[in-house]
């Protein structure tokens, strides 16, 4: 497999998971840059070009509440999970755990077979 193919597949794999990671991180209010830092500290590296539009899309879908606030001499837009977002996060978390268990079994079987 070429590097380009691997990159494309990684991107596809991460796309859905990033939504979950962003929603989970926004249980607490964050502005764009602080959210990115939080994700990075949690081991999820995401570039600005992906993160900022994603937050806006989630807010437009009503999953996040947002508010402009003054902080450190500058205005910042803070985002936090809305009620709808909280419900969705709970459902997505269940789905993720179910998928994760199933995949772990499958990947475990596959790695044993390759050995």
């Amino acid at each position, binding site marked *: 497999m070429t590097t380009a193919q691997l990159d494309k597949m990684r991107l596809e794999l991460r796309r859905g998971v990033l939504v979950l990671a962003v929603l989970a991180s926004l249980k607490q209010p964050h502005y764009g840059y602080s959210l990115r830092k939080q994700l990075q500290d949690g081991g999820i590296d995401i570039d600005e070009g*992906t993160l900022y539009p994603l937050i*806006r899309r989630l807010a437009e879908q009503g999953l996040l509440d947002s508010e402009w606030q003054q902080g450190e001499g500058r205005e910042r837009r803070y985002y936090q999970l809305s009620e709808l977002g909280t419900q969705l996060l709970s459902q997505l978390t269940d789905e993720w755990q179910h998928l994760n268990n199933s995949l772990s079994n499958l990947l475990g079987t596959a790695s044993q077979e390759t050995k």
Partner: protein
Amino acid sequence: MELVKRYIAAVQRELPETKRDEIGRELNANIMDQLDMLAEQQGGLTDTDIAAVLKQMGHPRTVAQQFVPPQPLISPGYMALYKNTLFMVLGILFLLQVVDSTSAWLSSQMSFLLYMKSLASGFMQDSLLGFTSITLAFWLMSRHEPKQHSRCEQSWQPEQLPKAGPHWQHISLQDIFTDLATYVFLLIVIWYPLWLSTEQLANSRFLFTDNAHQLLKWASPLALLGIASSLWQLRKRFWSQSMLLGNIVLNGAFAAVILLLATFSPLLKLEPEVWQGVLQLEQLERAAVTGLVITAMFPLWEVVRDILRLKKLG
């Protein structure tokens, strides 16, 4: 910070007007946060550092497209319907143009080359208008979210699907409209006195002799049958054994009529003074017979093709 302002203005230019202020404000806040962090780490900022951060953000157009992804002119949900409508309308416009140009050709001294040019340019004009109108209509429809599945897609039954067969069994719209145009052309040419005024009739010319013209008149029900068959194909879009059989009979009859026409002598109604010094009348007759024999090869080829297809289906 002049560079940041320029960058944000460049991004805003690529955004819809309603979203410019909001996204620009947010993007500015995010970039400033990033620059603050960098200044804290390095103890200061130069224009080169700012340029590097902006460069890392991406080209303004790319950033704008990430915030507001470009919408296709035609929504993917309508694409299949759009293509089908486009082909159908262009096919009908081609038929109408054949009628129009052929009538004009028969009632004037237009040469065959000019006739082809008139047919091509007329069709181009009509199709440009058709293409633009259909695309605009679908663009307007696409501005509203298409229904996920049309009524046809919801009520389909697997049992109603045609049998899996070779790819040629699906009849293309292009083939159907080409056949339709040929049959319409033949009917117009054969029955030209019906739609020409007395004056136009006096100026008109018909190449074949009266006897040959009489044979063509007798053969015109074949063209009508051809039109009916094409319309049926348009409805079914799938070759069945009975349709193939019908096509074999139709094309066989057409080939027979054309070959019979080639045996007529004289075949052409020519004015000797027009051709004097250009070509001998015998040469023209021979060329017309050869042309007819070559023309007969086309329906004959379809006969052979359809017999082979019929065998494969059997």
